[in-house]
């Protein structure tokens, strides 16, 4: 009887959209569902078609990141029985998430009426923890709470390991670059912008090809970054923006330039990034705002001239 139930559950295909929080928690979700014996359908890397689908379905004024997320769900909706949409309201007490994460579940439900959504809630203000919510979700899916606990433990371990590796890689890169000749540029952006195949990655690749050493703002110890962000802004309350500003503060004395990468029209970025840029005195910086109509050529010209300015400045300093 129980085997039959598990076998039936096994047929469930859970779709994970490769967008927004996937770029932070992807490893956690993949391992968790694999351990539970659930089939996972992962959407492909963001491409033009996904963006076009998302832009067509979303409200015009949604930010590009949400449009991409909607595009991924659209890709998944026929290929999976249910999609995973986390409902994250508050990660640490005294802080908040951008309201788009609070509304994500309802955005998906309203854009795709009738879609089956698998959600787990995290809200530090109501003592809803990630562990509690995910284990409850796992127990429901697998029909066995102990299996859910084991799966969560394993997933959390794998996630922590991959996050640590990322951080260590950046730390090594940073140490090597400080001794080297290459100019050092910090890209200040959310994980879901930096890691996206359509948004951040082409920019990072382009910069590395032009001989720049690129650091990413999301590869720093998050708690530490949030702590030092207070040097820039005392009243900032968005968790992820604290991490961005903290990274900017941490690297500000060692980098030759900063690129603020935002997705149009990101609400919190409009305030936090502008504040941060004006406090980074003496560091060359540009704000690159990405939208779904982005022409690659215009962006390339801007990056090229920025790299030129930085190289020029570095040469002059040496003389």
């Amino acid at each position, binding site marked *: 009887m129980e085997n039959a139930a598990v076998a039936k559950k096994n047929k469930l295909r859970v779709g994970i959209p490769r967008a927004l929080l996937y770029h932070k928690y992807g490893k956690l979700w993949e391992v968790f569902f694999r351990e539970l014996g659930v089939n996972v359908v992962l959407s492909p890397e963001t491409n033009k078609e996904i963006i076009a689908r998302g832009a067509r379905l979303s409200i015009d004024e949604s930010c590009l990141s949400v449009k991409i997320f909607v595009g991924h769900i659209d890709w998944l909706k026929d290929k999976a029985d249910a999609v995973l949409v986390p409902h994250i309201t508050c990660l640490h007490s005294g802080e908040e998430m951008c*309201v788009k994460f609070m509304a994500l579940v*309802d955005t998906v439900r*309203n854009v795709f009426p009738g879609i089956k959504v698998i959600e787990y809630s995290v809200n530090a203000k109501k003592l809803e923890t990630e562990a509690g919510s995910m284990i409850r979700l796992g127990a429901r899916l697998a029909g066995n709470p102990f299996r859910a606990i084991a799966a969560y433990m394993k997933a959390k371990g794998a996630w922590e390991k991959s996050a640590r590796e990322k951080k260590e890689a950046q730390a090594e890169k940073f140490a090597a670059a400080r001794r080297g000749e290459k100019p050092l540029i910090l890209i200040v952006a959310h994980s879901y912008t930096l890691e996206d195949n359509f948004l951040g990655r082409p920019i990072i690749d382009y910069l590395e090809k032009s001989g720049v050493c690129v650091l990413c703002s999301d590869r720093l110890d998050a708690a530490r970054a949030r702590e030092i962000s207070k040097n820039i802004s005392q*009243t900032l309350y968005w968790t992820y923006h604290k991490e961005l500003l903290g990274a900017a503060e941490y690297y500000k004395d060692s980098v030759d330039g900063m690129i603020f990468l935002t997705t149009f029209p990101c609400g919190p970025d409009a*305030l936090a990034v502008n504040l941060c840029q004006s406090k980074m005195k003496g560091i060359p910086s540009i704000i690159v*705002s990405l939208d779904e109509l982005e022409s690659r050529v215009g962006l390339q010209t801007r990056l090229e001239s920025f790299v030129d300015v930085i190289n020029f400045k570095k040469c002059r300093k040496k003389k």
Partner: protein
Amino acid sequence: MPEKKVSFPHMGDYYSAFKCLVELIGRPLVPPPITKKTIELGFKYSPETVCIPFKYNLGNYIEALEAGADVICQAGGGCRFGYYAEVQEQILRRLGYEFEFFKLNNKNSVIGFIKDFKRIAPHNTYPGIIHRLALCLARIHCIDAVSDCVRKNIGFEIHPGQMEKTYRKFLEDLVWTYSLGAVFSLKNECLCQIRQIDIDKPADCLRVGVVGELYMLMEPFANFYLEKKLAQRKIEVHRFVTVSGILTEYFSGDRSVKKHLAAAHPYLTHHIGAHGTETVARANSLIKKGFDGIIHLKPFGCMPEVSAMAALNNLARDRRAPILYFSFDSQTSEAGLETRVEAFCDMLYMKQKKKKNG
């Protein structure tokens, strides 16, 4: 030591309520009324993609500081509003103004709020502060009660202009009314006067609810006097977002969120932040009550209201309800708004006629 001049941003007709609180700190300086110049100043110095209330506030501050203010105040809460104060302070300092910035944060409780006042204006006694707070709340309550009555009837006046005149007189008198009893009797007197004005209101007049982001709803200059435009077309306008409404929500906390989520069923399952949930809840219940149309206002890029729009779209489709969306930014023109409002009203009238004729 000369007395400090204290200023605050405008919002709708609430300056008399803000003024009586600010008098605790120093001499109040009501900023010049919002004009085209205010918003031009705001645009010039604000980050480009920030929401438009930020720009109006900044314009108010610059004009007030030019007029000689020493202290300016800002509240906070909701989504981006909570972070306004720090960014605005930094922009104004960069422009070279010297001032004190008094930030009231909504995370504070009422007691914290009173303590904040005591800290910044130590010459006041606690009972004095509490009395002023009560007076401020009373003024807000009375302004909302009177303006609600005006909103519903002003379109149907036989001799246009009387109600507006009575309302303006009430606002002027309110500024100089300092006892709680007098404030309430002023309100009752004004309501009596308004009821005596001759109106010709058909029983089946069109009813439209305005919902959306609070600053856009409450500041008539920012929404190009939308409510007046509707009233001129003989429409009864209902609005629920008022400062007293917001304060009630704030004090009832989670309970009000739960209530709104129930009212927004089946379009929402979670609180979507700031006033987004309330927007959907109000729209849903107004349509159920048989309102003829809904108008949704928001600043460009307002995050919670954009999330609410996805739900409103479904509501409009399921219940065949007319919903008109406006998004305000620096490029929004009054003529464009006027044309769309006109078309919307014509459509509502046609719909009503069709229904009557079966």
